[in-house]
């Protein structure tokens, strides 16, 4: 009873916040609702006993990704009208993805749920250990591949955004620290009425 009740509570919140993500007038509010959506999916994971996945989802998506979204969205000067004028262009792609995901959900609910129950996660070991057992052995290749994908994304982002400007004066801290007084300061004997020659 508690399980089912909490499931429907969090699932309802999840769907409601997702709807608000789409229909919020202010993009910052959208990102904040997205954070709530992530939080509710964390609760759902914890509810089926996958607390490790749930908390990692919270750390990665709420603690890092959504903050960066918020960071970017806050600094952009987005006008609602320009957003709305472009929105029709994305409809076909959005429908395509929605269709794929809907098919997956229908497939899973019809063909899988009858064979296995939601509490498939065994209680004999805690699920951090269970993930650790298979992540670096059975799924080693997948793990490495996802690492490479992330590395590519990182390098791509740097290549796209980094512009080398030779005219910028950069601070070289090692160079600053390694200079001595004799390189910078010179003791000059000044004769009266003559001044110093510039060298």
């Amino acid at each position: 009873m508690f399980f089912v009740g909490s499931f429907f509570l969090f699932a309802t919140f999840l769907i409601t916040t997702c709807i608000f993500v789409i229909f919020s007038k202010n993009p910052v509010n959208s990102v904040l609702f997205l954070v709530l959506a992530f939080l509710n999916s964390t609760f759902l994971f914890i509810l089926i006993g996958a607390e490790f996945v749930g908390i990692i989802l919270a750390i990665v998506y709420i603690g890092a990704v959504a903050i960066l979204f918020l960071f970017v969205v806050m600094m952009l000067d987005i006008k609602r009208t320009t957003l709305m004028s472009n929105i029709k262009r994305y409809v076909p792609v959005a429908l395509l993805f929605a269709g794929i995901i809907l098919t997956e959900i229908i497939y899973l609910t019809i063909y899988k749920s009858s064979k296995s129950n939601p509490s498939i996660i065994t209680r004999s070991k805690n699920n951090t250990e269970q993930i650790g057992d298979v992540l670096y052995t059975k799924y080693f290749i997948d793990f490495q591949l996802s690492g490479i994908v992330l590395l590519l994304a990182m390098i791509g982002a740097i290549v796209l955004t980094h512009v080398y400007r030779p005219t910028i004066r950069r601070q070289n801290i090692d160079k600053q620290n390694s200079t001595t007084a004799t390189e910078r300061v010179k003791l000059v004997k000044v004769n009266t009425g003559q001044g110093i020659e510039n060298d």
Partner: protein
Amino acid sequence: MSSLSLEITLGVLKIFSFVVPVLVSVALLVYLERKVLGAIQLRKGPNVVGPFGILQSFADVLKLLTKENLLPSSSNKFLFIFAPMLTLILSLIAWAVIPISSTYVISNLNIGILYLFAVSSFGVYGVIIAGWASNSKYPFLGALRSAAQMISYEVSIGFVIITVLICVGSLNLTDIVESQKNIWFAIPLFPMFIIFIISALAETNRLPFDLPEDEATLVAGFFTEYSSISFGLFFLAEYANMILMSSLTVILFLGGWYPPIDIFPLNVIPGIIWFVLKVFLILFVFLWVRATFPRYRYDQLMRLGWKIFLPLTLVWVVLTSAFLFYFEMLPK
């Protein structure tokens, strides 16, 4: 009374037995800070309200409570009021998993350390929402700075925690403390201990890393527009976070409730007292650092986080795991 309602009552009492001491020690910490700073700068510090001025913080709280709470007319009202609440809530719910002694903990979670890490990484939302909802220049700049700063230092904190976890083999905070019965992790992992303390300073926005509230350039940073008790909540949360990070340092590196050496006069003192003493030691270091070091410049702060701490901690993770693997000391 049925068993369920009895259980709930006991649970609520247990939660209060954590929250009330934390809030009281926040008040005492503010007093301690002003006294320590006073002593370091050859002043007296607060000495009028109560004996030795010990009731000064309570007087300050009363003053804050009676002030008018201003709402800037151009602010986002809901988020403006919500941000300080969120900050304080996050700094208090983290105490749910902190083990004060071997048995005294609200919830002995299997993934306690991850829970703590998640809650501390949410802390930035309070700051960034406050800065944005104020709809004002200085708070916004403060919020942006703080978001960048907290994310940067979370990365190195994460790697430091991973190093400790490799040595322990469990994510449970009680297990982490118990594996330090013979030797505290501060000794074999000394560089990580130092990095953790420095990152904790940055994570709690304390001097020398208090750029989000840099009064010389940003008035008061993200809480410039806040007044009365909503300012008070930020203030409470900052100090509660300091105590939390100190407790985390004690749990990860200073052997929690264990005495320094397991010999007669030391091991009869109860664990809770050892824990509190160690937390006080770390808090004193926080205050000492505040009185000693000038504030970092923003680019220096980022350089320290990304170019010095990140490579160092990354190498140390590999080094520790290689060492433990080679000598077959990896925990089962």
